[in-house]
């Protein structure tokens, strides 16, 4: 399974909840313990281990606050 990681920009998240709703693997939670500078309840990337880098959260975020990455094993390099 591909492995992924997301970064949520806390200046831009408005706590709408779409990312956590559309994440098929429940990686994102919004339990109200983190707030954005504007006072929105932040979405939090709570379960990185489940993330498969599908990117749905990023394109469903209306505020373009999420960057989704696929983690790729770097080839071993024989020389420095």
């Amino acid at each position, binding site marked *: 399974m591909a492995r992924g990681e997301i970064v949520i920009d806390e200046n831009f998240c408005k706590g*709408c909840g779409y990312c956590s709703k559309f994440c098929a693997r429940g990686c994102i939670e919004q339990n109200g313990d983190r707030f954005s500078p504007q006072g929105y309840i932040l979405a939090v990337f709570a379960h990185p281990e489940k993330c498969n880098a599908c990117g749905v959260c990023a394109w469903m975020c*209306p505020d373009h606050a999420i960057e989704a990455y696929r983690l*790729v094993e770097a080839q071993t390099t024989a020389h420095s």
Partner: protein
Amino acid sequence: MTDIGVKKELVAGRPDLWLRMENNPIPSCPGCHEPTAMRAILEALEELDAVGDAVMVVGVGCSFAFQSMVDLDYLVCAHGRPPDGASAVKRVLKGDHVVFTIQGDGDCIAIGAGALINAAARAEKITIFMLNNANYGTTGGQLAPTTPLGHVTSTTPGGRTPAHGYPVRVPELLATFQGVAYTARGAMNSPANYQKTKGYIKKAFAAQRVSLGLSFVEMLCACPPNWHMTPLDSLKWLEQTVIPQFPLGEFKDVQGASGKTQEATR
């Protein structure tokens, strides 16, 4: 030195054509789908390699603020007048420009109905995008031509009834015009609908680039604050109330835009 590590490849993020204004969040309400509709349009332009020839013509509404946020040549027109402005832009630029409008439902089919209908009648080779959030968002949620029956707005406090007239279905209306090559209605309320709508957008641009006629895509957008709902509830309401009155799909697809004649798939 051997370096067993992990490389991060960006899968999805902020659209390249979206400009950040320092650390200010996008001037839209929590859960508003208009920036998502813009994302689909900007991604389509990039994928069609049309960014350099694109001219965005913006009307007056919630999307008015996007004029300074998008890295495209743009022109703002009077409320309801983007089809007039876009018609002139397309004709005077004479190149194979991709000229498209960004309008709300009020801008497009209330105050702008005259401009829209006549641009369609003239078969202007432009693409019209109507972001339909079922009310006048910027001004506090008044009744719009596309407000569903029963819906409470600040000017239908008891809910919309036939006394306030019936919702207007614009892609179906425009499909009857000879000058119109492609019309469709999509929605932003699910990943599947997002991808389907992006497909409609690319077909609309394709119809413009082969000069078949006017192309039109309506995008249903959530408007949580003016619907007096949470963002997540507004997704449900869109599914249960709005979409039944505004069916999704393609209503006209003249051959060439998608390679086959398809009167209507609804």
